[in-house]
């Protein structure tokens, strides 16, 4: 089912998949997720020009996967994904906590009510 939310969410998803369809960009993202790195530093890792690396980084940036910050003459690539991934895993933790609570509620409800009213 295709849902048009009219808020550009589908376009963003398209951009994310397009960005990740390229091996170099996946590698750049993987490195960025392990720590901040610079565009010029990245260019030394791949057999391509700095301009070509910049283009790959721009595609990742357009998909909201990384953002660029400037430190002196260096352009630094930082990942956005860690925030969302962290939220995801914390929500999973809370889901686990609540599933446990609901199980215990069910156990309490399965017992006959005590007459002491406490």
């Amino acid at each position: 089912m295709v849902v048009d939310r009219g808020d550009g969410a589908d376009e963003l998803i398209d951009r994310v998949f397009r960005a990740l369809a390229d091996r170099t960009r996946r590698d750049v993202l993987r490195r960025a997720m392990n720590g901040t790195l610079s565009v010029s530093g990245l260019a030394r890792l791949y057999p391509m020009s700095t301009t070509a690396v910049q283009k790959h980084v721009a595609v990742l940036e357009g998909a909201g996967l990384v953002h660029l910050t400037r430190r002196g003459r260096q352009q630094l690539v930082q990942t956005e994904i860690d925030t969302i991934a962290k939220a995801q895993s914390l929500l999973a933790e809370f889901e686990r906590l609540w599933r446990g609570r609901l199980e215990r509620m069910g156990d309490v409800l399965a017992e006959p009510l005590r007459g002491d009213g406490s």
Partner: protein
Amino acid sequence: MTVIAVDRDRVGLALTIVSEFDAPAERVWQVWADPRQLERWWGPPGYPATVVDHDLTNGGRVTYYMTGPDGEKLHGWWRIISVSPPSSLEFEEGCGPPNEDLPPTTAQVRLVETPEMTTMTIITRFASIAEMEQLLGMGKGEGTKLALGQIDAILATTTGS
């Protein structure tokens, strides 16, 4: 008890969990309204809860502590926003002193009774990731480190928000 739906909103930091109980709403309400029953389910295994104050009225407070395996006490509180027995309860929750500068973490509980069962919907909206870690008792900086494999999970659920 059966969990029938879960929604994790990663962007809005909210968790919705819908469950069904084979009991009337009046009975299910008691697990919230009776502090002795609340104590039996609130704390996770190994962290039994002791309810200190339990004023389930508008503006009222519930305070509790959970006792960990090493005897350490984790204190928490609710501030009741609204209460309407046996169908709805809304409260702010936290641990440690309330931070007035941040929007609070809130929980909404709704009970809907049908002839066969009671459906309970709980929506928790978290103030921040730091607050979530605090509520889980994880302590500062002890968060979860991203594993590369998680990106698949993120992409798989991108359409859900």
